[in-house]
């Protein structure tokens, strides 16, 4: 095989065994890499109902055939496990240096099992794999941990680590890389922490088998030049993703005060222009110059790397419109290893529940200093922080009354930075995302605003969500490369199969990946159903607040409007129909057969009847 190394490591932290295992071409072509490898192993190897924070859960770090190669923006890895936040399939993709180093070390992925007795780190240097004590870094924040690991190893090593939030099993603790990279929103950092695994370090020196190195080199060079030219024309890198904040505010889709409002007259105070003016640095993954991490100084003088989601959930959704303070909250989340989106959403929900009189507490929207104190309590799971550390769904289950109506989550994962009070298609994107409410797989707001009727619940919107899920949640997640050049500045999608073909020697076309993406979505859905005894389509439905006319905007472009439950359910039916899933949102037997998932369908039938 070219492109795929055909090798992975199975590392058991309980008995300290390390096995080098192999896979064949059939497996590679069927699952491709990244998320594909992850869901296949988790489906096959996890006992249904396994405790996500117990030793029997497995933590996977996976590359794809394109990641870690000399192709544009290919420095990403997928981290995956059964999620402690949602109880379903969880994953995330993280940029940094791990992809290149792990691939050069000779491994396409890692499966980490068991639980170490004491804190450990895994060090991988080509054929040398060590499980080493990590008592010196356990208890430390991400920034101190990185400094120690840079000193002990080097800045060129690939490093994945967790902060105190992961160690203390905050259910939305992330895995961290470099100074500002994070991934694995549904608690992948907590899974590492539950295994007493503080960090993974890798350095490789081997050649990567590429089918046509000359063509790849040419395509890479043209790609880098082309992307740079586009970025120079557009100026995207000047503000990174933060530029979108004011636009989202203009069209009434900004999360404000736990998404009760869709815009704020103060949004400009934390927008991309303000970030650009305050910028003190930029950073990106290995081999990337479309560097999305825009650093500003926070209130305490730290370099804090901002992007839009952080600004929205730690800024406007908390009613905080002070840029250095938002940067401080971002810095603290990054240092503790808290997901900025879920962390912000948990704080917003807490402030809202207090304001609604459903719970006693000392926190109001707009209180940045209190928010900082709460983030620390979350990271250490102290006092009320222990409640907030469980995410909005579990918080609402404990608070009771009607609090679940305004717990802004789907399947237990907090909704990211787009307020869909009147965006039916984007709401469907959140409702059907395969890890819970994340924007990473389908983002159709510009389509809804510009290309079609915002108020429509037409089948075209369901089709658009599926189309984007196939690319963003399929192709990019199995190649395991960054989607930003395509989505943010318009680098043509057609180049990506070219990179893959140059690497593997195959001749696959863009449309060939649809079936692979559909297979992944069907198996991920099967995983959710197997793990969820009371599975129903309700798991794909968005929070009731977006259907509540009482919270409709009083002014602005969507004044008086909210989503309609019946129509949302019709849109969901279109989505199921396009995917050939049944009305419960479960893939049909024939669908699974056509996707070469016959064996998996037979197993799923042990848990639920299939149409």
């Amino acid at each position: 095989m070219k492109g795929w190394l055909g090798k992975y490591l199975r590392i058991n932290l309980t008995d300290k065994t390390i096995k080098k295992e192999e896979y064949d071409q059939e497996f590679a072509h069927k699952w491709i890499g990244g998320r594909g490898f992850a869901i296949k192993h988790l489906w096959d190897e996890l006992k249904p109902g396994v405790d996500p924070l117990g030793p029997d859960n497995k933590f996977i770090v996976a590359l794809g055939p394109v990641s870690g190669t000399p192709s544009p923006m290919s420095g990403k890895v997928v981290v995956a496990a059964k999620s402690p936040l949602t109880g379903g399939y969880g994953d995330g993709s993280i940029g940094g240096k791990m992809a290149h180093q792990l691939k050069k070390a000779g491994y396409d992925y890692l499966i980490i099992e068991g639980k170490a007795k004491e804190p450990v780190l895994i060090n991988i240097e080509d054929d040398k794999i060590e499980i080493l004590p990590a008592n010196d870094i356990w208890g430390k924040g991400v920034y101190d941990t990185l400094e120690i690991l840079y000193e002990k190893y080097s800045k060129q090593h690939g490093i994945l680590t967790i902060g105190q939030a992961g160690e203390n099993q905050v259910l939305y603790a992330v895995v961290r890389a470099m100074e500002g990279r994070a991934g694995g929103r549904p608690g992948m950092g907590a899974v590492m922490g539950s295994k007493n695994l503080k960090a993974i370090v890798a350095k490789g020196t081997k050649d990567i088998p590429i089918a046509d190195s000359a063509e790849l080199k040419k395509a890479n060079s043209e790609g880098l030049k082309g992307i740079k030219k586009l970025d120079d024309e557009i100026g995207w890198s000047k503000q990174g993703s933060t530029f979108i904040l004011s636009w989202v505010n203009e069209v009434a889709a900004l999360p404000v005060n736990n998404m009760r409002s869709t815009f704020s007259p103060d949004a400009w105070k934390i927008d991309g222009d303000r970030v650009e003016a305050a910028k003190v640095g930029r950073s990106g993954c290995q081999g990337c110059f479309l560097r999305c991490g825009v650093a500003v100084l926070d209130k305490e003088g730290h370099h804090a790397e901002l992007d839009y989601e952080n600004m929205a959930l730690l800024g406007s959704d908390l009613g905080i419109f002070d840029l250095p303070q938002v940067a401080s909250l971002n810095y603290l989340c990054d240092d503790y290893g808290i997901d900025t989106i879920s962390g912000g959403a948990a704080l917003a929900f807490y402030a809202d529940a207090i304001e609604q009189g459903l719970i006693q507490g000392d926190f109001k929207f707009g209180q940045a200093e209190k928010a900082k104190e709460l983030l620390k309590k979350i990271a250490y799971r102290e006092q009320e922080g222990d409640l907030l550390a469980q995410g909005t769904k579990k918080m609402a289950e404990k608070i009771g009354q009607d609090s679940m109506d305004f717990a802004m989550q789907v399947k237990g994962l907090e909704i990211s930075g787009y307020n869909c009070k009147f965006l039916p298609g984007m709401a469907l994107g959140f409702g059907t995302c395969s890890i819970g409410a994340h924007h990473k797989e389908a983002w159709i707001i510009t389509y809804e605003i510009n290309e079609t009727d915002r108020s429509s619940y037409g089948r075209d919107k369901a089709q658009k969500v599926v189309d984007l899920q196939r690319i963003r949640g399929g192709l990019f997640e199995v190649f395991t490369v960054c989607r930003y050049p395509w989505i943010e500045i318009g680098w043509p999608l057609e180049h990506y199969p070219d990179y893959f073909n140059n690497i593997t020697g195959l001749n696959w076309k863009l449309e060939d990946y649809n079936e692979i993406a559909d297979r992944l979505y069907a198996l991920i859905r099967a995983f959710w159903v197997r793990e969820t005894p009371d599975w129903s389509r309700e798991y794909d439905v968005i929070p009731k607040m977006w259907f509540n006319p009482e919270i409709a905007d009083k002014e602005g472009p969507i004044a008086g409007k909210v989503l309609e439950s019946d129509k949302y359910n019709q849109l969901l039916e279109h989505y199921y129909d396009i995917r050939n899933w049944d009305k419960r949102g479960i893939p049909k037997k024939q669908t699974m057969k056509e996707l070469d998932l016959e064996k998996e369908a037979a197993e799923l039938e042990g848990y639920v009847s299939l149409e």
Partner: protein
Amino acid sequence: MKIKLKTFGQFIYQSGFREKEVTIPHSITVVELLPLINLKKQFPMIITRNGKKIGHDDKIEDGDRIVIAPFFSGG
């Protein structure tokens, strides 16, 4: 008549402003507005009026807030 304008992305650098109030002739369309602020239609644009989509041939009205952003597909 007076309108408010806001630009995003490359349109900031092409037009030379981020946000401003301008006086424009009555009854002009979006297409007619663009050259007045040094913008060309060569890049895909999303143009909104008061937060809602406005067609390129729609007439701009007094007091409108016109926002011009590049077409992007988000995070």
